[in-house]
């Protein structure tokens, strides 16, 4: 027996249990898995900070617009390029647009795109990776060749090339494209984990019992890599947000008249040194969002990993 680490001991030692007909065991003290995970997450201060910030920013993005009387499409002809004031919290643009309203709108866009992309790409990665890893053979080879192809294509370039085609169409196309280029690395990791899980005894037991393969994948394999998928989804949110803002910055993503943090930052970059508020607010909030999401993702990874010493 090896010397246990402080964290591992909690889960491995259980209250005294007798075999067969013994006195009943105290049920109330046995915690469910998710509350254990959340308790560990709570202990990490940075992670909690990140979570609080994410929630606050979400609220800000969706409730914020109600805090001001200006809409993001409005133009205040009495106030061009004014600094932050009580009527325009973040100042105004060259055309009198309210930077606060614009930034809120941009945040909404970026957040929604981020979450949708993360969900699609993680889902895609889970399916492709698990099926490739479980079945092996030609299924694996063809799926992985496809993954390799997508990895080889420079995503930025391809999306940039395609952006003129969805000018004027809904930004959902953009979401799909972004998701299409984010899932590959995770798919490989899922595949690797599936291959190692496929030889785990409980999977073999299910196979030898006659449980059909898709059932095994959905009931045994995917739930057991859910920690990986959750962490990956969280990281994908931040990657998606950065991807979207980068593309929008160069004019390839969200198109006017719609705004995103990327377009706002692009507009503000030219005047960054003279009219700082045009750049600072969208850029600062962007960094804050991504930072908070990354902290949450990192905290989740530590909380889900039983050997991390929390």
């Amino acid at each position: 027996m090896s010397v246990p680490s402080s964290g591992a001991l909690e889960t491995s030692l259980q209250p005294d249990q007798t075999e067969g007909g013994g006195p009943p065991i105290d049920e109330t003290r046995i915690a469910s898995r998710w509350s254990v995970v959340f308790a560990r997450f709570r202990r990490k201060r940075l992670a909690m900070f990140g979570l609080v910030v994410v929630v606050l920013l979400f609220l800000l993005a969706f409730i914020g617009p109600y805090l001001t009387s200006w809409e993001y499409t409005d133009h205040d002809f009495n106030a061009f390029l004014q600094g932050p004031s009580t009527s325009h919290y973040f100042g105004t643009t060259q055309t009198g647009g309210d930077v606060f309203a614009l930034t809120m709108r941009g945040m909404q866009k970026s957040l929604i795109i981020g979450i949708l992309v993360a969900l699609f790409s993680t889902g895609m990665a889970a399916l492709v990776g698990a099926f490739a890893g479980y079945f092996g053979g030609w299924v694996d080879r063809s799926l992985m060749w496809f993954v390799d192809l997508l990895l080889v294509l420079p995503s930025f370039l391809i999306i940039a090339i395609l952006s003129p085609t969805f000018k004027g169409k809904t930004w959902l196309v953009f979401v799909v494209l972004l998701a299409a280029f984010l899932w590959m690395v995770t798919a490989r990791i899922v595949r690797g984990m599936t291959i190692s899980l496929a030889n785990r005894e409980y999977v073999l037991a299910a196979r030898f019992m006659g449980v059909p393969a898709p059932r095994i994948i959905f009931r045994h394999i995917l739930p057991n890599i859910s920690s990986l998928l959750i962490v990956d989804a969280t990281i994908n949110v931040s990657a998606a947000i950065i991807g979207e803002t980068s593309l929008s910055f160069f004019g390839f993503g969200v198109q006017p008249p719609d705004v995103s943090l990327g377009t706002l930052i692009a507009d503000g970059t030219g005047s960054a040194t003279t009219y700082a508020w045009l750049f600072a607010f969208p850029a600062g909030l962007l960094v804050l969002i991504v930072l908070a999401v990354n902290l949450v993702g990192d905290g989740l990874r530590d909380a889900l990993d039983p050997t991390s010493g929390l």
Partner: protein
Amino acid sequence: MTEPILAVRGLKVTFPGSAGDVRAVRGVDYELRPGEVLGIVGESGSGKSASALAVTGLLPQYAQVEGSVLLDGKEIVGQDDEAMTKIRGKRIAVVFQDPLSALTPVYTIGDQISEAIRIHNDVSKEAARKRTVELLKLVGIPNAADRANAFPHEFSGGMRQRVMIAMSIANDPDVIIADEPTTALDVTIQAQVLELLRKAREVTGAAIVMITHDLSVIAGFADRVAVMYAGRIVETGTVDEVFYSPRMPYTMGLLGAIPRADETGDRPLVPIEGTPPSLLNLPPGCPFAARCPLVFDTCREVEPALIAVGSPGHQSACHLAEKIEAGGWGPTDVFPLPELAEAAVARIPREEREVVLEAKDLVRHYPLLKGAVFKRQVGAVQAVDGISFDVRDGETLGLVGESGCGKSTTLLEVLELAAPQAGRIVVLGRDTAELSASDRRALRRDVNIVFQDPMASLDPRMPVSDILAEPMRAHGLGAKEIATRVRELLRLVGLNPEHAARYPQQFSGGQRQRIGIARALALEPELLVLDEPVSALDVSIQAGVINLLEDLRARLGLSYLFVAHDLAVVRHIADRIAVMYLGKIVEIGDVTLVYERASHPYTQALLSAIPLPDPHKERARRRILLEGDLPSPADPPSGCRFRTRCPKFAALDEERRRRCLEEEPPLYGLNGADHAAACHYAAVVKVV
């Protein structure tokens, strides 16, 4: 009386944790005389490893260590890292359990041993290198000068452990602490390593602290024994005293629970009910009280101290120690023996029983891939290379062998229920090569498997009721029927049906294994395949599960194909045994005949390597030690595969050797009985 080289008094080790402090070691005292071997025995959670590591100061930094450890009179508890680095590797050396993870993968073993030398001695690189090669020769590594440039993963487990021992004796230590040094090794390799440790003791004059869970290993190796339970020593004395006159119920239970390779399997094993207590919240009184058949009120209130009983030096921590001494009680007096059912079919002679499983010339090769970037096939691993056996209704066939012999591969081949690469498998009268997909699915109801690792064989995300229901759902049983059957199954294996909603982690190892057995029985199979079902369990739990398996076999009319490397367990539970080596069966037959009249040199070496929990017998035994390592299964020797390590081959003359070199021996029948051995020159040698 010489002064002890190591004196431990009141050693306590506590691990603080967010859920509370775990008191892993709660006051341990022992003394070690120069050149003596002290065996510290305990199951998981007993604190044996923690107490030994505390002596070296190698516990994690958050561990709290109290008490006193005197090395040759000097206190070492509480010394800082700087002072301890002068002691470690020079006066106290450690041999760890898993040599693969204990050696740095990126440095050659020569470098690692030289490093050990140069830390404590101001010598040049060349001098250290010379000494390294000497040490490697001493521990029996062939081609020492060349092999010193190899990396750890290029060695087998046994060789790596030799390297670890070489590293530990490099600086002539006073004390060697061996933490489960042979647990991860095969039986014949274990015998080699134990022999080597004896040699190390002779060469350096060091005292050895041997930590293990295996009482049998202690019987032949140690001078004194300390039995640990729940963080304290509960019995200590000389080996003879503790093994022949145990005076603490836990020790007695352990001794009664061990299956012995020199006994027939008629007597059921002595199980100890319950599980070790949690070290987080230890109840007052004796920690063994919840499981002890002799328990009375005082036991639950006052924790017994170690008191002298019987001969001087023999101590036991039990309130009833003197009573036990006075009455001369043994394990079977204290622990009730369970009643095991007798199978009806056992009365029919074997030849007349139905054939449940038959394998004929079964072959399974795996492609061998080489290279990191560009993988290519360079050969085939001949995991199973033509074996034949059969299992009849109501009988247990034990398939034994060491790692790499192909026994697990055989199991998996049988379970695939598909046409094998060569040969034939017939399950319940159906040839697997002729099965359609639906036939196969139907047949899966009749054949099922119990795995080795109780942790990995149950999906941690599913509650037990779902785990048990899964096979039934896969074959279309209705929900109501399933619910009833789940409760029935839990009762069948001795578990409380009320606990069906719990998750596997909430059960102990032994209970999880019972759940695995229940799952295998869900569809009322005829044949159960068991892959080392008890080797991952503690000894006291093992006995209960073995008894359960025997009982179920008799009551439900099952047949077992039982794979194991623990030959003592196999003798107990199997009716017939097949010994495998490098993909072939070298001896097969009735279990009593094979054990008592072992005829193949490999079987003889295997059986002679099994330690017995009997000090007198152990000391008197002559061990047949095998040389070297298992040959690569991708490139097996010509003719008889065992000839490269066979002691008989080494003693033969040129002419007779040729036959072993050229002609692969078939299974020769012996004396017309149910016994065959694949050796041209088979002869009986009594080894147990």
